[in-house]
């Protein structure tokens, strides 16, 4: 049985030190697509965390009986079923947000983050630690989504959760929205900036350069 501190480490490690998005660069496609506003980012983050945690729990429970030859497809079937259930729940109770998220809830199935965690961790650990790890990774993903979603909504519309925070120039205030923030490229810029910021503070995350540029020949005098 893992100690208390070990469980705590499993839960908190993926927040920054092992963050699935900024360190492992997993799941960035949806992270870029759904972060135009905080509400959609939050819904996506919660959906992914729920799917990931449940999938990890189920897969960890049957981990000793998954035949190796069909393990990936078994995992995907479980994840996909959970995603459909979540999608149906969203359509029923959060119809508007579900429309804003459109296909991205369905694409949780193919989010590398989910399969990555179930394949790498849940398959080798008992249900409780597996679920703690999955929940921690879900929180790490959520953290990145909320940061990027918050920045994009704040600078793109001057709002947070749909509430006007910065007074718009049109309405007599001083803030002119940066429309670029609502477009996909800004998601890349912000995510890139975030990765850079995290790796500047935690230098151990920076990857070694894969190759060094050839030394420039001294110009002949």
């Amino acid at each position, binding site marked *: 049985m893992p100690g208390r501190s070990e469980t705590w480490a499993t839960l908190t490690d993926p927040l920054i030190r092992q963050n699935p998005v900024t360190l492992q660069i997993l799941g960035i496609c949806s992270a870029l697509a759904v972060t135009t506003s905080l509400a959609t980012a939050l819904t996506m983050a919660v959906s992914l965390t729920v799917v990931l945690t449940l999938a990890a729990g189920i897969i960890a429970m*049957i981990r000793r*009986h998954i*035949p190796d030859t069909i393990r990936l497809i*078994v995992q995907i079937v479980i994840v996909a079923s959970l995603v459909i259930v979540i999608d*149906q729940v969203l359509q029923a109770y959060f*119809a508007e947000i579900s429309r804003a998220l459109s296909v991205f809830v369905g694409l949780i199935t193919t989010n590398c983050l989910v399969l990555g965690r179930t394949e790498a961790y849940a398959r080798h650990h008992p249900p409780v630690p597996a679920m703690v790890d999955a929940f921690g990774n879900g929180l790490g993903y959520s953290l990145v989504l909320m940061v990027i979603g918050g920045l994009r909504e704040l600078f793109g519309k001057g709002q947070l959760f749909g509430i006007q925070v910065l007074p718009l120039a049109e309405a007599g205030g001083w803030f002119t929205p940066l429309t670029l923030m609502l477009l996909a490229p800004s998601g890349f810029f912000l995510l890139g900036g975030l990765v850079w910021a995290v790796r500047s503070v935690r230098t151990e995350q920076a990857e070694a350069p894969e190759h060094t540029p050839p030394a420039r020949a001294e110009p002949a005098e």
Partner: protein
Amino acid sequence: MAGPERNPWRRFLALPNESRTKTLVMAFLVSAVCAALVSGATVLLRPIQAANRAAEEQARIADLVAGIPGMAALLEQSGGTLSTVVIDLDRGRAAEGITPATLDAALADPANWTALDPGADLAGLGHRPDFVQVFLLRDGETVSLALLPVTGQGYGGRIDAILALRGDMNTIAGIAVTGHSETPGLGGRIAERSWQASFPGTLVRDEAGEVRFRVARGPASGVHEVDGITGATRTGRGVTGMVRFWLGPDGYGPLIEAIGRGEF
């Protein structure tokens, strides 16, 4: 040591993971459980989702009415409620036993569609449904505005629109194009407010009761015409055919007569 395991489930679990039986049975079990989960969720949640979709549709219609010039004021006067009625087109009255919720199911049955002869088929539809959902706005007892969904064949494909008629059932109050696939910049301009602005006030029929509405080629001349769009003759013709068909005897004609007689 215990003897050989009697319980077949335990014996199955004890099989090596690589055995063919275990692989097949595991695949089957996982699929069966997942299928049950997905079907259960879909069936349980469907009523709530259907209600959401109905609310969304209602909001779109309300939005459309608010967009027709002058309608917002009329809506406020009459309390802002639209009644939704499913109409039996042949009889020109409310359909019996079909509600907006069951309309889709009724239209899935080919028996509820009427084939049109090529001569009468001005809108180029081929066949039309017998039941249509319309929206009526009442001012006291009389109908002050009718919103009639219409469909026709344009240049690039189907045009879907909602035509609003005033209480006299002869004056157009506005049109809203809800779907089309016309050429952007040419026929596609039918979706623009500026073109739709020439509809309000246009009369559909002359004194003899003949449908005279027409999209002109060029600027409108006369009370029965609306402006044409340059370079979109066939789209204009499509709109003309659509309005003529749906306000004619095979379309809403019986309904319009019934409203004229005060039956609604």
